[in-house]
């Protein structure tokens, strides 16, 4: 019993030390920000206390939900659309090599178009509203998913595929059962990159011709010289982005657990 307790104490001690190492700097910076900015007379660099107050009043709760929820919904729709198109198209282009090679210059060109440059075009085609934002997000986020899917699909163990083919396993089973799961880690990398891109796109797509959203709220705060609200918005955006990334990493762990299990050979 005593040994268990001792081990427990040792483990938590190490754990706590590990957490302390990771957190001391952020806490110090935050405290430093508070102290440096309190009582600040500067127009643009206002006190942290007023920023946190604005965060509480305008960004959490109902007022915040009115802006945050539409953004998140558009983000989710656009991202899922990009994921679907990216994986499907990527699988096709990856497996049918001649096709993939033939369209590669077009893909290279289309993905080099800066997402922001598409904002005027998006406004033109879709006008104002959610379709414009969802389409813009989908267009901008699809490329990492597409390219990583192509890469992942092409690097599937050729021997496995040949064995399946010689046993006359039908194509769709080959793809769903072996190709995609093998490519899963690469696809996840692509999805992770796309998430950051999608977050960037949703913010700037809400800065023109929009009636709600996080980007819209930050810009409006700036226009009306509501400086604490503007800073609070940027802070909120950082938190939301961070949480989304953590959430995604959790999903990634889940999905890839099966992959790891599948690929460990007996005795290794």
């Amino acid at each position, binding site marked *: 019993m005593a040994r268990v307790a001792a081990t427990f104490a040792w483990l938590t001690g190490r754990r706590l030390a590990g957490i302390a190492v990771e957190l001391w700097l952020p806490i110090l910076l935050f405290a430093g920000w508070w102290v440096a900015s309190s009582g600040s007379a500067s*127009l643009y660099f206002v006190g942290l206390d007023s920023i946190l107050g604005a965060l509480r009043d305008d960004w959490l709760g109902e007022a915040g939900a009115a802006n945050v929820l539409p953004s998140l919904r558009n983000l989710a729709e656009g991202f899922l659309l990009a994921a679907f198109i990216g994986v499907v198209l990527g699988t096709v282009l990856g497996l049918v090599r001649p096709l993939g090679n033939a369209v590669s210059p077009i893909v290279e060109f289309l993905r080099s178009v800066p997402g922001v440059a598409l904002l005027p075009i998006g*406004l033109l085609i879709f*006008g*104002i*509203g959610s379709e414009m934002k969802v389409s813009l997000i989908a267009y901008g986020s699809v490329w990492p998913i597409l390219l990583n899917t192509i890469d992942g699909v092409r690097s599937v163990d050729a021997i496995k595929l040949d064995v399946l083919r010689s046993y006359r396993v039908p194509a769709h089973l080959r793809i769903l059962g072996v190709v995609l799961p093998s490519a899963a880690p690469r696809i996840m990398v692509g999805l992770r990159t796309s998430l950051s891109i999608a977050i960037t796109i949703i913010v700037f797509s809400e800065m*023109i*011709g*929009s*009636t709600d959203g996080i980007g819209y709220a930050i810009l*409006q705060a700036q*226009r*009306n*010289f*509501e*400086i604490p609200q503007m800073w609070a918005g940027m802070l909120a955006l950082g938190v939301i982005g961070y949480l989304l990334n953590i959430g995604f990493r959790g999903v990634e762990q889940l999905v890839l657990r099966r992959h790891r299990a599948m690929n460990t050979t007996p005795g290794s």
Partner: protein
Amino acid sequence: MIRRPIALAGLLALTLVVAACGSAAPAQNADGSTPIAVGTSSTLSNASLYYADSAGAFARRKLAAKLTVVQSGAAAIPLLLNGQLQFAAADPVSAIVAANKNIPVTVVATGSVTSDAAATDSSSILVRADSPIASARDLAGRTVAVNALKSLAEITVMSAIDKSGGDSSAVKFVELPLPQMVDAVSRGQVDAAAENEPYSTQGVHGGLRKIATPLSEAVPGSPQVIYLAEKRYAAEHQSTVRAFAEAIAEAGGYLGQHPDQVRTVGRTSTATPPDVLGRIVLPVFNGDRLSQASLTGVMDLMVRYRVITAPVDLAAMITQQGP
């Protein structure tokens, strides 16, 4: 060996950044005139500023003006505050909002003023010809495009709706650039647009229908464009500010008595083609000095439609010039 190139590059970068960042305007030109950088927009409402420059009103008062086009009044205020501009054209709403938030700007002069009759009003609310909207009252529950949210356009549209018996709280406003609003209405993306010239006339010619003239209905005779300066600059350069205000008033008075001159000014100061200039409703100018009373109407609307929560001390935000 490897550190040196990095250090050199760092030094170079730092120099470039510093050079790019700081370039304060000289206090006096060689010929004794005071250089002033003025932010403006490329619309006709700033015609008195352009005329003051081209007709020599500035030069006569020893001011060397450099006019720069800025996106909007609100966008010009940061430039005023960091000294890149000495004066900037803005609309009264942005100025009052800024004053409300204790941004240290002060109003020094007036540009164009809103007309007091529908026939001479350059503003309009446009709808599609086949739209069921007959008057401002029917805008309740619809989407109206304005060129900036919480602006003069928005509150005057709301006022127009309320005055004609509608419910202004049920309207949705969306922000679009002026040239695009006509397009958006024609395509049905928005139900109506609060336009200003030259798009008011272009919109009507393009098949849209005018249902109201919001500015003259809500705030007749109020300043449509005002000129701002930073408070400390105004306090330290009183003679420059006075000279600027006099020049603008002189130009405005002249344009008020010779309205056709506005078209001539517009040929060089705006990108509007001359034939369009010939057809549009011109902004109204006069030589009146800036007065607190003229801004009260705008401020009351702002309080009513909750752009600001409480009245602002107008006297404190105006640099009154002597008669």
